[in-house]
């Protein structure tokens, strides 16, 4: 079910069924022949050898090749699926995830990248060779020699401009057709005008030709274009890797027999079976069975809730202990998940589109460049009446203002910053996320699963008498309930011999220990009274003729949570904790982390409304959350981050994803985003400063090809070096 919504959240939140079927069909095709797995933990030469050796040793695998840059392995294994290969890697200690069919689009992105690299190579070659000839001309080659050099330069430059300039010509043409002036229109104009005028000048054996400038423009601008492409491609493949791959299926009961069907085909009235440990695929009423339900991802509650016949369950909750039979009341677009989706859609619309710094710069830049070129052409025409001179000067203005530095200003910084964040364990999914993150002044955290690991741990085993520990461990091992799992993990004693072990779904586990009945479970089942308003959850152990023992559990803090909150507050940000959990648990956690501002028992709509409220008061909110109940707030916030353990709906709705379990990168990301935005602004300032010097010279007709070449390369290199200061 979660998957279903994920596909809905990403592209078209309302329609789930059709794209899902399409995705399943696509996946079947990819599965033939090659399997691509992501390897988030691979990082060294040993990892490469381990993974490749393990995979090639597996029968049926023809070839396996690790790509360490992308952290994935491509396996050629006809007839094998990812599910066969993931356990092979798990045995040698590597976590692996199947990549979804979107990985295919990543290969087209690679092709585009290679195409751009090829054009960079060609223009680089042309630029250097023409420059050798140009230096000779600048240092005083005369008459026939100069003409010869110009002709050779032209012979190299014209095909280069034709080939390497294509990305600019294409996007300029696309912009003109819809009546816009993009960055690429003045670039294309400069390239064409510079080439045309140089050919004319060469034929007339003139002094100046701009062939080197044309090739150099292509070279620098293509580098900017390539960096931009790479950042986007990485963001895209990151998003693709994150879309989890569990196929949303449900076990439909037809005449008492189970049938596995896609969730999308469920209709109200259908009977479905939900096994312990599975996610509930559709809203429904319990017909049969008792169990406990984990609602953490939907509401943020840490305590499991008792489920019995007659009770309504919502899609997305997790069934914990006993099998349940449900009558579907709402599926697909009517379900509570779909209602949440609508909320997310509305929230996204309310946030509006963010205009990036680069867009704002190019909106200012294009018209002013055209205007300046036109004015200098008109001015020189009017003053001298010399068409050749006027066109020459107009071309010089276009070349000199050409946004080499401007085109590099943003991509160079974005590449350096996102590379640094990737190494720290933060994936950026959206191109403007860094800029938005830099503006953030308020941080809203979710509790369960975000500040905590969403995993109970035993507070202390002190209340447990030493002789009962083996019994407790044995009872705990008999159940898959989260508290039992935590208890079993916390105790190290050899489990005691028990007989007649029975799990009572929704209540606990009972058994006999040397003839004495023993029980582990809920307080009310054991007949003791518990305090519900304590910040911790508890289970009880009862052994006949002994007082019941209360075992307290707390939700473990995510590593780095305290450090992260402290750093954010030190950076002057307002930190809030908004949770759907009980007030006592929220207050306890807030006190431990030093967060003064906290709200408990907030529903998803309430979370979104609070974020919207903060925004209305002029705040820029960073939302950090992991649950379905956070998705609307994540979509509404100015910027959003979710941990990798989050439900995929939440990860899709957020701009950035934490790959590790540590929270500290969140605080680092805010600091780095501010630094990156400052660098981008500096870069704009550098290119503007260079234009302020160069443009008046060009308009005055004093720019020679030598000055143009110097100014162009110096500004581009300055901007790139400034961006590289961001690397660590």
């Amino acid at each position: 079910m979660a998957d279903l919504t994920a596909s809905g959240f990403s592209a078209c939140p309302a329609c789930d069924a059709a794209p899902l079927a399409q995705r399943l069909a696509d996946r079947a095709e990819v599965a033939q022949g090659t399997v691509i797995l992501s390897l988030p933990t691979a990082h060294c030469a040993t990892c490469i050898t381990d993974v490749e050796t393990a995979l090639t040793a597996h029968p049926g695998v023809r070839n396996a090749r690790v790509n360490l840059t992308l952290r994935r392995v491509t396996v050629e294994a006809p007839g094998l699926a990812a599910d066969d290969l993931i356990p092979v890697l798990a045995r040698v200690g590597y976590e692996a995830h199947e990549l979804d069919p979107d990985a295919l689009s990543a290969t087209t992105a690679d092709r585009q990248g290679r195409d751009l690299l090829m054009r960079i190579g060609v223009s680089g070659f042309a630029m250097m060779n023409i420059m050798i000839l140009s230096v000779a001309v600048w240092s005083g080659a005369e008459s026939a020699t100069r003409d010869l050099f110009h002709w050779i330069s032209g012979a190299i430059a014209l095909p280069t401009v034709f080939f390497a300039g294509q990305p600019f010509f294409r996007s300029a043409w696309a912009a003109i057709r819809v009546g816009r002036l993009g960055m690429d229109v003045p670039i294309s104009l400069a390239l064409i005008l510079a080439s045309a005028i140089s050919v004319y000048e060469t034929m007339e054996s003139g002094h100046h030709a701009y062939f080197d400038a044309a090739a150099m423009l292509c070279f620098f601008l293509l580098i900017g274009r390539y960096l931009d492409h790479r950042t986007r491609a990485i963001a895209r493949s990151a998003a693709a890797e994150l879309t989890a791959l569990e196929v949303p299926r449900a076990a439909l009961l037809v005449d008492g027999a189970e049938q596995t069907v896609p969730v999308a085909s469920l209709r109200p009235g259908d009977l479905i079976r939900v096994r312990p440990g599975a996610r509930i695929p559709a809203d429904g009423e319990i017909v049969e069975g008792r169990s406990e339900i984990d609602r953490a991802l939907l509401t943020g509650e840490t305590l499991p809730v008792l489920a019995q016949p007659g009770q309504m369950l919502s899609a997305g909750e997790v069934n914990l202990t006993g099998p349940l039979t449900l009558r579907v009341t709402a599926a697909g677009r009517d379900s509570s998940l779909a209602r949440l989706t609508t909320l997310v859609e509305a929230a996204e619309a309310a946030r509006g589109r963010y205009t990036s710094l680069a867009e704002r710069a190019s909106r200012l830049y294009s018209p002013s460049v055209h205007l300046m070129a036109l004015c200098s052409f008109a001015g020189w025409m009017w003053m001298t009446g010399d068409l050749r001179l006027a066109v020459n000067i107009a071309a010089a203005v276009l070349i000199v203002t050409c946004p080499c530095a401007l085109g590099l200003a943003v991509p160079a910084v974005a590449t350096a910053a996102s590379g640094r964040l990737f190494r720290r364990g933060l994936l950026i999914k959206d191109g403007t996320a860094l800029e938005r993150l830099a503006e953030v002044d308020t941080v809203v955290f979710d509790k369960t699963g975000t500040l905590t690991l969403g995993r109970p741990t035993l507070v202390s085993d002190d209340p447990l008498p030493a002789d009962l520990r083996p019994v407790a461990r044995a009872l705990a091992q008999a159940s898959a309930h989260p508290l039992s799992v935590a208890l079993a993990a916390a105790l190290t004693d050899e489990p005691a011999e028990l007989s007649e072990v029975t799990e009572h779904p929704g209540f606990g586990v009972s058994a006999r220990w040397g003839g004495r009945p023993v029980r582990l479970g809920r307080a009310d089942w054991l007949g003791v009274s518990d305090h519900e308003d304590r910040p911790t959850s508890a289970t009880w152990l009862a052994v006949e003729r002994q007082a019941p023992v209360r075992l307290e559990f707390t939700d473990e803090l995510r590593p780095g949570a305290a450090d992260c909150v402290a750093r954010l507050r030190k950076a002057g940000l307002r930190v809030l904790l908004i949770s759907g959990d009980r007030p006592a648990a929220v207050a306890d956690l807030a006190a431990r982390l030093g967060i003064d501002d906290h709200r408990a028992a907030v529903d998803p709509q309430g979370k979104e409304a609070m974020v919207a409220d903060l925004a209305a008061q002029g705040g820029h909110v960073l939302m950090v959350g992991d649950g379905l109940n956070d998705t609307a707030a994540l979509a509404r916030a100015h910027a959003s981050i979710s941990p990798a353990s989050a439900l995929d709906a939440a990860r899709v709705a957020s701009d950035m994803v934490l790959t590790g379990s540590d929270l500290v990168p969140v605080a680092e990301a805010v600091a780095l985003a501010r630094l990156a935005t400052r660098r981008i602004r500096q870069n704009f300032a550098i290119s503007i400063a260079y234009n302020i010097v160069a443009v008046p010279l060009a308009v005055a007709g004093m720019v020679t090809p030598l000055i143009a070449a110097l100014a162009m390369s110096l500004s581009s290199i300055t901007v790139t070096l400034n961006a590289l200061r961001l690397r660590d």
Partner: protein
Amino acid sequence: MEMLSILIPVSLGLGTAGLVAFIWALRSRQFEDPKGDAERILSDKWDDRPKPD
């Protein structure tokens, strides 16, 4: 000045050779995994010759 008729073709030829080498490297996907290639030289598994693809 006659030297030019030799020097110019030579310099262009050298440049072209570089360009061809770059295109070959690009086509044979040598820029796909720079980090992996840097690590692979440390592996003694394919020490004597490159791993066949």
